[in-house]
């Protein structure tokens, strides 16, 4: 799409000299790429902390009764697993890492609009993350409320609720600033000729995400703040003994926390929309529908929070409306899935690691989506509410979907970010472990949840044990796969083969700049004349070959 590249003699962003020396060249950087890399290291570290907590929980559940830990430890583990995975990994992961690194390049800009604010949001992220980890070791004990902080338990328990809430509050601020920055960047900094419908689909998804971040996050901010105030000052706003309404807390909590799952999944969908055309060598099918469906998901997704509360006490009318809207939100999601599959159809498919993760995403996200419709239906929800079916559904969307999207992006953009290639065979072996392990861990939860296994329970009836054993074994395979993946990537970073400018044959702007990109991305800002996924050259070649 852009004109032929001229090799520059400028050092890449890893090696460029800036006004600060040593570690400060990173800690005080305003470069979106360095900030993206710093996010990557922090986010992957927190991810492994959360994953270890998850593996320990699964180990505890391999047999009924006590296996390796006390019930109180178990309660803290599932709470911290949730807080870390949601607030520290999956909400910031894709916008903060890949959005920061690639959004400006994909729209032909030299940086984000507010570079200093960008650095500030990284610091807020780190402060929030460290505070969450510190709360583990403070007197009072690790928080044990579940990541949802439901009232009234969260104002009664003596554990470290306030540090955990403060952490979530600060992380929310970081998320808002990232969203604000990206929206302004997309509005103001697109390269000449890059009109809205020449923009790649990853920026489109970040745009929709940014609006949800801005409009939904303040609600959780004020809600968590009110819980803190309630704990310290007894103002009565949520405390039922003073007249407060715990169900109101749930409404406010889910007013953010449901849209939050779209903050999580939308960028992943954007990443999948980038990867599929590249590895199918085909122009994406239904570009505008994918772009608009991101906005539609952001809009409808903000109106469905009540489906978390069907059994919490709500009028039947409200329940019907929330259920109906929940069904509606599946339409734009399905549009995306159909378009990805249609893009693959008759493509020239290269089964590389990024595409394999993307394919696993499509299947697992679809399973997560369909089971979401099941529990969005009022009658079935009564049966499945608060069982491990919910846990399975949630992990199929958040991990099988968003998590796999993150892994796909790591494998797709890795050569551009680090200038080297990982071992492709090991990457595929790791992918197989992660995918098999993931499904073995979470699919049994659908079955046992349907049979009545409650979620968050420390102990269970013996008839559920076979499923728990399968799930725990799955968690080992999954974790082994994750370790294999990360070791392979770290090795690739250090000693992998040098990567060229466009190792996958991508057509978006990031593949037209040096690998790794120089400090200012483009020597001259490109003028864009075509849409983002122009594979007509391959399509013409294919026709000629026939």
């Amino acid at each position, binding site marked *: 799409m852009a004109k032929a590249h001229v090799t520059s003699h*400028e050092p890449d962003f890893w090696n460029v000299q*800036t*006004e600060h020396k040593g570690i400060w060249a990173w800690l005080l950087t*305003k*470069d979106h790429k360095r900030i993206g890399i710093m996010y990557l290291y922090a986010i992957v570290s927190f991810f492994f902390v959360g994953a270890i907590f998850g593996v320990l929980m699964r180990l505890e559940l391999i047999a009924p009764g006590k296996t390796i830990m006390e019930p109180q430890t178990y309660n803290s583990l599932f709470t911290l697993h949730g807080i870390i995975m949601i607030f520290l990994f999956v909400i910031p992961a894709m916008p903060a890492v890949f959005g920061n690194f690639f959004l400006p390049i994909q729209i032909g800009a*030299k*940086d984000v*609009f*507010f*570079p200093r*604010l960008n650095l500030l949001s990284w610091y807020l992220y780190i402060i929030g993350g460290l505070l969450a980890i510190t709360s583990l070791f403070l007197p009072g004990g690790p928080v044990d409320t579940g990541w949802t902080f439901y009232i009234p338990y969260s104002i009664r328990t003596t554990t470290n609720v306030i540090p955990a809430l403060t952490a979530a509050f600060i992380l929310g601020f970081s998320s*808002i600033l990232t969203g*604000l*920055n990206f*929206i*302004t960047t997309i*509005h*103001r*900094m697109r390269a000449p000729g890059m009109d809205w419908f020449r923009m790649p689909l990853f920026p489109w998804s970040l745009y929709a995400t940014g609006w949800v971040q*801005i*409009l939904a*996050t*303040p*609600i959780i*901010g*004020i*809600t968590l*703040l*009110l819980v803190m*105030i309630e704990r310290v*000052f*007894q*103002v*009565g*706003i949520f405390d039922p003994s*003073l*007249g*407060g*309404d715990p169900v*109101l807390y749930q409404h*406010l909590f889910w*007013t953010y926390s449901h849209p939050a799952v779209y903050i999580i999944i939308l960028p992943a969908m954007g990443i999948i929309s980038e990867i599929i055309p590249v590895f199918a060598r085909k122009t994406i099918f239904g570009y505008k529908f994918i772009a608009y469906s991101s906005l539609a998901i952001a809009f409808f997704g903000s109106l469905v929070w009540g489906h978390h509360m069907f059994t919490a006490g709500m009028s039947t009318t409200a329940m019907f409306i929330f259920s109906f809207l929940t069904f509606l939100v599946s339409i734009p999601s399905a549009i995306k899935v159909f378009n990805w599959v249609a893009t693959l159809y008759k493509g020239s498919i290269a089964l590389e690691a990024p595409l394999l993760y993307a394919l696993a995403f499509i299947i697992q996200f679809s399973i997560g989506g369909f089971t979401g419709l099941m529990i969005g239906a009022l009658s079935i929800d009564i049966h499945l509410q608060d069982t491990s079916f919910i846990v399975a559904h949630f992990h199929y969307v958040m991990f099988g979907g968003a998590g796999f999207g993150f892994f796909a992006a790591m494998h797709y953009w890795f050569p551009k970010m680090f200038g080297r290639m990982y071992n492709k065979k090991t990457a595929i072996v790791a992918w197989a472990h992660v995918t098999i392990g993931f499904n073995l861990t979470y699919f049994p939860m659908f079955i046992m949840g349907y049979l009545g296994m409650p979620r968050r329970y420390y102990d269970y009836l013996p008839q559920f044990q076979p499923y728990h054993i399968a799930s725990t074994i799955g968690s080992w395979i999954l974790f082994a796969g994750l370790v294999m993946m990360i070791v392979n990537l770290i090795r690739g970073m250090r000693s992998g083969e040098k990567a060229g400018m466009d190792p996958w044959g991508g057509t978006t702007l990031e593949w037209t700049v040096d690998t790794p990109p120089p*400090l*200012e991305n483009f*020597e*001259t800002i490109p003028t864009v004349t075509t849409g983002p996924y122009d594979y007509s050259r391959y399509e013409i070649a294919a026709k000629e070959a026939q």
Partner: protein
Amino acid sequence: MSGQWETQSVHLHRDDAGSRMGMWLFLFTELILFGGLFIVYAVYRYAHQAEFHLAAQELHSTIGFINTIILLTSSMTMAMSITALQKGNKALSMALVSATLILAGAFLVNKFFEWAGKFANGIYPGSPELMNRPQGEVLYFGLYFVMTGLHALHVVIGMALLAVNLSFIKRNVYTGENTVKLETAGLYWHLVDLIWIFLFPLFYLLH
């Protein structure tokens, strides 16, 4: 081309419309932050109408009225300071920003005496006096302290912004048409004012 590389000007480029847009987006988040509280207020007012009515009569609407006038005036001086700066009158602009700061301080002093009066009457969150009252009144005063407290915090943040801008003007950071930092600080200040415009009737006038 190479000259362009050496400066990092790109990381500090200028686009006033974009800067204003960023501030507007931030103001949306502030509106929704308070929006959450307004929803909570609406829910509890609906549930405890009579008790809210009774409790509201204990607030001094005169103090609230004076504070409303103070904040509205401060918004005016804020807007005038921007115009003064745009017209190149640095001294007048600084005087007007200072006036805004003084008015903001006066607002907080008033607020302090108002809260202190409540405390002296034994009305503060968790106080024995309040705990003996019906739940609707507990909620009313709980919301009163939380909402006006959070608003006062925003006044303090706004004052910090204005103080920074005062030093910017003094150090000649603003040149020519480049006044966007003061303008965005002004936008923030007007939001602080606007939130008060809603708080005042909800707590003081709605008996």
